[in-house]
């Protein structure tokens, strides 16, 4: 009995020790001290965060981690990655195992207000969709009454799915797996008729199928899924750095500055560009970064458009079009406050 009591107290002990209150400046100091950013990513989602066989990570979410490292160290490679499944991710951030989370995570009220976390921005506007096997002959999600649906645990997906079927008075059988690999396997083995997730991830998971052509993504989008980087609540300085690293990429696209022309742009007369590159204006001062923080991001990681096309757009296997993620002045809703 006594032993059991101790054993059950241990996790509580671990939590209480790990949960110091976050103070402004704490994370940046710790990151500078150890010399790298510890970034939480997915366990492997093509286009967003995926490791090659040499262990090099790439993807749209990974690029946010790299941008933060470039802003702090002037070196985008100073990142260490923690692959996390959906269930583990928030605990990892809360307990300071990671400095930031950049893992296709939806910004919701519960997560923003109940978990002691803050969302630093949106790097991909998504929405939940359905993937079905082609030979089912289903053309619309409204034909899915009575279907079995594979989902990954610990995602926003579970609730959206329930809401959608309830709103349309349809029945369904949810099969909830812990990891994305099992979810895909369950779908391939025919345990369920439908796999549901954010649409971008459906395209990514489809690549992982043994026969990607055998599945189609249905046209319906049933939810809003703004995905973005997350930090612990209470360290405003760190929050600002992560947020503005992302904004710098988006502003760079808007100003037409890319990794290819950034050096040439240094002699530009456009005051917006000159402020972005730290040649005039506030520079890195308020963020406690060097003046060329944004220059380093663009030079080493690229602007938002470059990151998008390289990872999930036309330069990738996913071939996702910009859609909602086009800039605000180009038909989309990606919009970053100005650097001035």
């Amino acid at each position, binding site marked *: 009995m*006594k032993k*059991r*009591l*101790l054993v*059950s*107290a241990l*996790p*509580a*002990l671990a*939590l*209480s020790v790990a*949960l*110091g*209150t*976050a103070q402004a400046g704490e994370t940046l100091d710790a990151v500078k001290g150890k010399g790298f950013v510890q970034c939480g990513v997915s366990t492997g989602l093509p286009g967003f965060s995926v490791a090659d066989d040499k262990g090099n990570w790439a993807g749209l979410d990974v690029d946010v981690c790299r941008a933060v490292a470039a802003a702090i160290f002037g070196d985008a490679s100073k990142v260490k990655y923690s692959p996390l499944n*959906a*269930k583990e991710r*928030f*605990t990892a951030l*809360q307990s300071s195992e990671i400095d930031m989370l950049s893992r296709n995570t939806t910004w919701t009220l*519960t997560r923003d*207000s*109940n*978990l*002691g*976390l803050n969302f630093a921005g949106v790097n991909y506007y998504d929405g939940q969709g359905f993937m079905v096997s082609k030979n089912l002959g289903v053309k619309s999600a409204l034909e*899915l*009454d*009575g*279907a*079995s649906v*594979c989902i990954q*645990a*610990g*995602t926003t997906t*579970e*609730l959206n*799915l*329930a*809401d959608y*079927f*309830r709103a349309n008075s349809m029945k*369904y*059988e*949810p*099969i*909830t*797996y*812990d*990891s994305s690999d*099992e979810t895909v*396997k*369950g779908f391939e*083995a*025919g*345990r369920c*008729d439908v796999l549901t997730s954010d649409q971008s991830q459906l395209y990514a998971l489809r690549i992982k199928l043994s026969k990607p052509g055998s599945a189609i993504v249905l046209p319906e989008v049933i939810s809003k899924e703004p995905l973005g980087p997350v930090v*612990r*609540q*209470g360290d405003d300085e760190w929050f600002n750095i992560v947020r503005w690293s992302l904004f710098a990429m988006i502003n760079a696209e808007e100003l037409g500055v890319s990794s290819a022309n950034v050096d040439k742009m240094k002699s530009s007369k456009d005051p917006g560009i000159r402020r972005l590159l730290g040649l005039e204006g506030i520079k890195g001062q308020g963020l406690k970064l060097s003046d060329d923080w944004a220059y380093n991001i663009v030079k080493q990681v690229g602007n938002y458009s470059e990151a998008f096309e390289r990872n999930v757009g036309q330069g990738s296997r996913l071939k996702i079009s910009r859609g909602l993620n086009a800039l605000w002045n180009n038909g989309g809703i990606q919009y970053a406050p100005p650097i001035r």
Partner: protein
Amino acid sequence: MSDLPNVSHTPGKPAPWNDPKIRALVFQALLIGVVVTFGLYLINNTLHNMEQRGISTGFGFLDNTAGFGVTQSLIEYDETYTYGRTFFVGLLNTLLVAVLGIISATLLGFVMGVARLSRNWLIARIATVYIEIFRNIPLLLQIFFWYFAVGLNLPRPKQSFALGETIFLNNRGLFIPRPITEDGFGLVIGAFVVAIIAVIVIARWAHRRQDATGQPFHTVWVSLALLVGLPGLAFLAAGAPLTWEMPELRGFNFRGGLSVLPELFSLTLALAVYTGTFIAETVRAGIQSVSHGQTEAARALGLREAPMLQLIIIPQAMRVIIPPLTSQYLNVVKNSSLAAAIGYPDLVAVFAGTTLNQTGPAVEIIAMTMAVYLTFSLSISLLMNWYNAKMMLRER
């Protein structure tokens, strides 16, 4: 000073601070006090820190609407029930797989344990191979095997194995007709209860008669006849108040009837096969611990193999078997939490998984979950200790 104690009191009654019993009590009370205070301090500190960090705490979430679906529930549940309800849905699903796992592991383990000692070469070999293979493969891999390689490789719903349009087997589960009782079924249940009472009375009487006169009675056959016959007669008398709801393929899946999910099936099977190996070894050790003289004595009395096992060997072996058997049962309960890996909605998956994810109070939810496992484990321990005491060697 050194001779003071000798003077101050009589040898039989030491001063309270010297009485080993009182001392032990005081020290134990102190230790408990320290542990409890420390525990409370930890919990308090954690909750305080979490609140500071903006992480929600408290049990208020239990009353909120859950809003998510669960595949299998033994009690009524849908999206409109509360998070508190999801706790019981998960708890019962864990209990179900634990009970099924324990029963089937025990059956398999006893059969294999006895088989391993069989004088039939083939049977003994089969048991040995079974034990050596399944004891040495990690349980999670076995669960994946039974689920992905066996369960999900069954045909799809449209190509189900069918037994006369009433029972269907496919990779979505096993579907059987569901009995629906009508008015008058209470009579059948009543008759069944009467039959059970009658069986108990008869068994007692037969036992006493055999003790007194040595005359055996066919208790088993009479009991069976009673248990089947009485409810059967009542059933006919009430005008067969029972209909069946048949499973039928509609759209993607079978609807109606009762179903056994492939997740439940695979998890139970994996738990049974894995734990069965350990139970088999325990049973073998137990049987071998009974001295050979007992076997020889039984043979000398002319007992055949089966009654010898049943009347002489097993009862004595049980004393050695029960304690390790208890810890195997505890393992089944704890290992059942691997369910989440294959999507079986147990307590960990539903409550410590989805509910925690949608609400946030980690300490409360994990504490509730741990309390459930602790309660299950302690209940099993108590039950088995009671059984152990009953089976203990009684000196006559």
